[in-house]
């Protein structure tokens, strides 16, 4: 058995994917666990589609995950969960936000086609398609939970907390929470801790159902 746990992280530019990557790094540095990532920097515009390939374990060498070999997908936005679905292993879990951020070109096309009698590519449609690869899906309104925790910017931390509730997840929840507290701006530690716990609890509850 190969010692490698592969996570495909995705979202929309500006949602704080890189912070998640650093949390994984911090925890692995503390525990001396091998980690390698393939990140997207470069075009720095906000609002583009972005992904991070994150691999943990002694056999994880390549910075990219092979198709069908991700053990977990974490998606900050629903369309992006679908966009990188080819990386996910059949039946592997997805922890995702139910938020759909419609790209401006989709909105423009909708308006051109006649907004009154056309609809967006909707969440229900996305979920239906995701189920073509896995039924193990935890979809949370991460933005609402983050706002409840005290800051919309903790959307990413809600999902990290949720990921820690997934069976087989390679980081201990306490280690991840502690790393978040170290990395986020001091003024937002409280809100981020709350966001983390809300995500964790919501995920555990979803799996119990």
């Amino acid at each position, binding site marked *: 058995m190969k010692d490698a746990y592969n996570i495909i992280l995705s979202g929309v530019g500006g949602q704080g994917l890189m912070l998640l990557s650093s949390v994984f790094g911090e925890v692995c540095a503390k525990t001396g666990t091998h980690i390698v990532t*393939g990140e997207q920097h470069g075009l720095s515009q*906000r609002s583009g589609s972005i992904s991070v390939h994150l691999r943990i374990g002694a056999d994880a060498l390549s910075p990219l995950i092979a198709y069908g070999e991700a053990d977990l997908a974490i998606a900050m936005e629903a369309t992006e969960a679908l966009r990188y679905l080819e990386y996910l292993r059949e039946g592997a879990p997805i922890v995702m936000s139910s938020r759909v951020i419609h*790209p401006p070109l*989709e909105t*423009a096309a909708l308006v051109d086609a006649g907004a009154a009698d056309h609809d*967006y590519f909707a969440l229900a449609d996305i979920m239906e398609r995701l189920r073509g690869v896995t039924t193990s899906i935890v979809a949370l309104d991460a933005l609402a939970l983050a706002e409840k925790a005290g800051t919309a910017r903790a959307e990413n931390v809600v999902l990290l907390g949720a990921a820690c509730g997934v069976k087989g997840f390679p980081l201990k929840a306490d280690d991840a929470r502690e790393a978040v507290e170290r990395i986020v701006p001091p003024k937002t530690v409280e809100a981020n801790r709350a966001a983390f716990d809300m995500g964790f609890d919501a995920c555990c509850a979803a799996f119990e159902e």
Partner: protein
Amino acid sequence: MGFSELVDTKPKTAYMLANEAVARALLEADVKVAAFYPGSPTSEILDTMGAFAPSFDDLVVEVAANEKVAFETAAGASFAGVRSFTSMKSVGLNVASDAFYSIGYTGVRGGMVLLIADDPHAHSSQSEQDGRFFAFPAHVPMLEPATAQEAHDMVAYAYELSERYGMVVMIRTTTRVNHQSSLVSVGQVKRSPRSRHPWKDVRAPYFTLSATARKLKGERLASLALMQRDAAECPFTTVSEGEGDIGIITSGVSYLYTIESLQTLGISPSVLKLGMTHPLPTATIAAFLQGKRTVVVVEELMPYLEREVRSIAQETAPHVHILGKMSGDFPYVGEYSIPVVVQGLSSALGIDGAPPYEAHRVKVEALKEGIPHRSPIFCPGCPHRATLWSVYMALKGTDYVLNNDIGCYSMYLMEPYNSSDSLLCMGASLGVSSGMQHVLSDQVVAFVGDSTFFHAALPGLVNAVHNNHNLLLVIFNNSVTAMTGQQPNPGSDFGPLPVTRLNIEQVVRGIGVEHVYPVDTFDPKGNIPIIKEALAHTGVRVVISNGPCALYNDRLRRKAGTPIVPNAVDHGVCDAIYACVRKVHCPAIQLDEATKKSVIQADLCNGCNVCAKMCPVGAINPRGGDGA
């Protein structure tokens, strides 16, 4: 890794981006002068070094006007006796290559290292240029790391080599090396003081011409021949003996894909991983070929290693089959990954057992049918959106040709605009426009950003004015080099160390342009008649659109404690005209699924007010129209 940890001088093992690891290694190597022009995937080396600069008073870090100047700055510092560094993206070396080829002759004094990064897949570049081909004709040694740790460790090795032979050394990376994060063990930082000394202490000739050129070329080639020993003993070159008569030769990130692919396929051939790829260790490769039936070369981009290995095989082991791209087993286009390498090895070696990567991908592709694209688009609050709209409106009804340039505004060539006729490389919009205005009857329009203006467009403008050309230049002055991460440029008022800000309007007038029109980017409607007036004149005309990059402006506002006030749509006033959708294309605006009226997502809105200015019924304002 957090900056405080990176800058802390003690040895440690920590999580960092390969580009951060390189910057850390530069500190450890006591590099004194580093000059850069940004370019993906190397920009974070600049960013990290720039952040270091205020903490070490012996360290000079500069953002140069372009790569050639950056390279020459590093060269001058090295001639004067200290260690120096520059890094650039693949195409950056095209700009710096004039100096690069000469320094291949003159050599250097203080260790000088150049890092260039290729971008297989052209993730953020205009081409899949293969920079390895620079090393051979320039007589410059080249190293290639595979991991963040190697990227760190190679820096010290490169400086040693550079000083031992008095030659510049090139470290060549690819995007998947630069943008890899992992745990990296770094060493102690011990800086020496930087004091000035007289030229006579270090004086040596650094010129190359005619007879000197022929003499120097001979000396460099002799040094490279001596360096065969280093290539053979290079600590980053490894041979792992495997089973059977099959071998694999690889380097860089392809090595990582290869190792995992072999595990996946359940085979264990011998693997030669090359850490130095110019000069190639001829004897090591020849020895590796001995007794093999087949040797597969795994490398991205062009068959650089494959051709060399073929020629070594021809001399020393003519019966060995050399397979790779030239045999049709591996692709020339795009980047490698485990599936690509598994497929290539399966094809080359005629073996089965590859996982069904492709079947899985095809199945998921079908599930993704109809998924909306999220192509790169201007950020909420981006000044380019408004400028482009004004220019578009002013040009409406005329015949025109539009030559674009390199920067965020390049996106004018993509959906939903599809409005550019050419885009070659930095600064080319001017030269191309100059050529066109000799031939075409249309309005000839050139675009350029502030950073690109200083980088390579200045000679084009000088040329257009001198030769009495007839064109309109639009300069997008957003205060920073936005696309690569908002680094400063000569028009910025900040830098890693104190700088002098150049005023673009003064520069343009100084060159002799008479018709200069500075405009406020965020007044899209008011700018239309001004641009029309510019179009009505003949000769060289310049519109300068002034408005800060949104991401940079966010940083400024955050620092100043100025709140970002998002807009909202008053649905009582909104008439579903959709001007905010059709004219603005802002990521913060979408339709409410029930009412089908526009809504602005508060956490994405930047408060630039361009949509509010476009709305014909005044339904948009910061309080959603409640009487504000």
